[in-house]
């Protein structure tokens, strides 16, 4: 059960230094970033899929969601997704489904 307080916390806007920055490989920054879960959901559909693959298999998405956004439940869902080893559009579609569904749940709880 997500409380009003925790939903609001997870949905907060982060300072620039805590945003998620999308890379396609070591040191290659795409120019896309997300400073909130809302922004992150949008970017899943926009960024190069190589970037999603790079970050999923390094554990960066899970780490940012759990450590910075403080959303362990969503991080655990992404860890399960990682175990099924999706690539390309399959990864993008499944990741979007998981994150957007979770985001809508949080939004309802935050009102």
């Amino acid at each position, binding site marked *: 059960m997500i409380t009003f307080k925790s939903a609001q916390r997870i949905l907060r806007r982060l300072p620039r230094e805590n945003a998620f920055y999308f890379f396609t490989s070591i040191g290659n*920054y795409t*120019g896309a*970033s997300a400073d909130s879960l809302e922004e992150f959901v949008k970017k899943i559909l926009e960024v190069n899929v190589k970037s999603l693959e790079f970050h999923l298999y390094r554990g960066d998405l899970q780490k940012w969601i759990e450590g910075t956004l403080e959303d362990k439940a969503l991080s655990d869902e992404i860890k399960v997704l990682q175990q099924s080893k999706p690539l390309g559009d399959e990864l993008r579609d499944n990741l979007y489904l998981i994150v957007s569904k979770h985001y809508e749940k949080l939004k309802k709880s935050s009102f």
Partner: protein
Amino acid sequence: MKVRSDTITLDELDWSILRLLQSNANLTYAKMGRQLNVAHSTIYERIKRMDEQGVIKKYTVTVDLARIGRRPVTAIMTVFADPKETEKVAKKLAEMKETVEVDTSLSEELLIIAKVVAEDQEKLHEFIAQKVVPLQGVLRIRTSIVTKKFKEGEFPIEFLK
């Protein structure tokens, strides 16, 4: 050696001393004097003057890291920045210990090119993701990791003569 406003004119002997020092900064005044057929006291005076006037910026040591079992990562990082912020970003990069050289370049667009060093690839990525990307004005970054170094050096003095 004459001083003209803030630039300094060097004579033939000064250039010869700089060439010798650039190939080996550890040469003694006596050795240089013998090679250039002048007294070692003359060499001493000339070097002292070039030091004081900032012609010689520093004496440095090039360490062969492979000989001491270290294999650090070197990368060439190209930063595409907002043109209004390029200068500020370049100055901030220049203050970071991970950058060994920072330049701006104008080809089709204004770029910052930096030579970056790190302990390993993970540390390199961490540096770029946590310290460079969040800088105001950074738009995107291309990084090439150096796989083999064929040459490293300073600007050859003889090109200026």
